[in-house]
């Protein structure tokens, strides 16, 4: 029984919990056992919340025995990226500077998960302060891709993606600033969504780039991601950029899974040179599949998308250089070199030198440069103008089609160490995902097969206008159903080694 529980989807667990066929305690224990069995190899988790999770599960079981059910996710385990604050659990953001920090408050999304009865099973590994595409920038060592432990699981939410792919949790939450949910979902062969910016609360999410950071769900199926999307989203007065609008009907769209008559645009610019051949062939197949399901496919040009990556690497570092100024060694977190002689500024500089890793330092310095007088107009100012051009490209495209599609990332999972000290090569992993972050619209990644050359998963990215997140699920669920029918099983069933 316990081994099977970890193979069930969140929707299946929800149904079994509702009938009383299984208890929340059994489900939670099964996942804790799975973590104990495989996480020394995957390293998806920075902290496993065994005691808290079992306590929460016992509460849910008591409620279920009394006939109360909080939500469809009551009793379903969720892994939480270590960037969300959690009372009673450390929150490190993968950084030495926050090692041992216990936040005094819960993120709004943590609160919502708990209120929904979801079981917070642990905190997942990530690139330090969400800066990276491989989890290799974690101060606590990288996570490993469950498909091939010598490959990266993507990042920055690589721990969350790896946990779900390795059956350590049916669901996980992450954050997407430049692709940090969709790229790891793609390379781990699971589903991950960046909701519309402002659709999911940033309160209690340690800030990296505030105009871009967007929390979102991971699941092994489109419906599971939709269930978590709905549970975690919605207006939050504690986040001044939260959108006061109803959550789009994502669960209903995932159940409908119908693309007949939908207009789907293939983005011309997100293809060609630099893309792995197996990624392009699987993507082309996915487009043909959608057409065979009744969608009307056209090619759409977004001429400014090629400037999205450079604009992002000015905007995100600029915002990070400002946001990370809060780590000043004064009120919480690490303090280094306070010997009674040094002044506050020296202690601050020594602490930040020891507490931050190489990528975080690179981006703080880059952002400081882009915002400094004399360079502000030439760099940060120009990047903000490019952001406008990208939004205009999307507006024009969504005037012609309902959704846009592209590969989620140009390559399948790369080897650990391969790009670790080549920042520009690492940044290219986010080539396809950055435009939606800059525009603040919605996008997801859904598995569309394995690259023939290496047998690793490829993701299809679907992009929709702001607050039309339901369209993502409609398209992804239709593709998933058709692909699963063709393959005869979910994609993850093809993984070898750890997952078989």
């Amino acid at each position, binding site marked *: 029984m316990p081994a099977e529980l970890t193979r069930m989807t969140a929707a299946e667990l929800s149904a079994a919990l509702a009938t009383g066929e299984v208890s929340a305690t059994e489900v939670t224990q099964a996942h804790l056992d799975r973590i104990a069995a495989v996480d020394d190899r995957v390293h998806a988790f920075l902290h496993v919340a065994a005691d808290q999770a079992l306590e929460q599960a016992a509460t849910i079981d008591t409620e279920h025995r009394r006939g109360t059910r909080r939500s469809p996710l009551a009793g379903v385990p969720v892994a939480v990226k270590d960037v969300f604050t959690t009372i009673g659990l450390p929150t490190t953001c993968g950084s030495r500077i926050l090692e041992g920090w216990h936040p005094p408050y819960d993120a709004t999304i943590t609160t919502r998960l708990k209120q929904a009865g979801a079981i917070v099973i642990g905190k997942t590994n990530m690139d330090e302060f969400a800066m990276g595409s491989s989890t290799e920038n974690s101060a606590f060592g990288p996570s490993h891709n469950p498909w091939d432990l010598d490959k990266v699981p993507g990042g920055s939410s690589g721990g969350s993606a790896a946990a779900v792919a390795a059956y350590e949790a049916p669901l996980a939450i992450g954050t997407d600033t430049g692709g940090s949910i969709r790229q790891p979902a793609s390379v781990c062969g699971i589903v991950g969504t960046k909701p519309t*910016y402002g659709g999911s609360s940033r309160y209690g999410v340690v800030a990296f780039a505030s105009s871009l950071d967007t929390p979102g769900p991971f699941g092994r199926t489109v419906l599971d991601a939709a269930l978590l999307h709905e549970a975690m989203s919605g207006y939050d007065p504690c986040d001044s950029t939260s959108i006061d609008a109803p959550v789009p009907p994502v669960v209903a769209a995932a159940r409908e899974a119908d693309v007949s008559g939908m207009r789907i645009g293939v983005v011309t610019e997100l293809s060609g040179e630099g893309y792995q051949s197996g990624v392009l062939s699987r993507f082309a197949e996915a487009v043909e599949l959608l057409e065979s399901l009744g969608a009307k496919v056209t090619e759409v040009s977004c001429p400014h998308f090629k400037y999205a990556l450079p604009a992002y690497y000015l905007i995100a570092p600029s915002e990070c250089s400002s946001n990370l100024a809060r780590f000043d060694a004064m009120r919480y977190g690490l303090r280094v070199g306070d010997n009674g002689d040094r002044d506050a500024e020296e202690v601050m500089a020594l602490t*930040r030198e020891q507490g931050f890793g190489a990528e975080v330092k690179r981006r703080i310095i880059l952002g400081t440069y882009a915002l400094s007088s004399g360079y502000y107009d030439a760099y940060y100012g*120009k990047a903000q103008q490019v952001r406008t051009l990208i939004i205009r490209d999307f507006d024009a495209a969504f005037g012609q089609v309902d959704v846009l599609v592209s590969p989620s990332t140009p390559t399948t999972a790369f080897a650990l160490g391969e790009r670790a000290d080549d*920042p520009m090569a690492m940044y290219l992993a986010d080539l396809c995902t950055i435009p939606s972050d800059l525009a603040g619209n919605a996008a997801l990644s859904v598995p569309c097969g394995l690259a023939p050359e290496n047998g690793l998963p490829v993701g299809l990215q679907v992009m929709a206008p702001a607050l039309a997140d339901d369209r993502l699920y409609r398209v992804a669920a239709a593709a998933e159903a058709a692909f699963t029918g063709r393959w005869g099983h979910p994609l993850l069933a093809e993984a070898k080694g750890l997952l078989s």
Partner: protein
Amino acid sequence: MPITRDEVAHLARLSRIALSPAELDHLAPQLDQIITAVAQVQEVAAEGIPPTSHATGLTNVFRDDEPYVCLTPKQALDQAPAVEQQRFKVPRILGED
């Protein structure tokens, strides 16, 4: 325009990061490469295009000024590196002179 090792050292000081000489040697050429690449934004961002700082279009979001339960002093100070008389204790902030 290339960025020099001295400029990176200056930026690190502004950023309050005490970079070691070895890190400066390593970071300076990487930053130069990154800045050269991101300078592409200058090719297309012509005069007259308005800047976008965030995508929601929201402006001036206010909340009502009402009392609510917030952190207690004990909770707020709980994670401080040093505390004295219910305050954060910090290194001196003024020089000798």
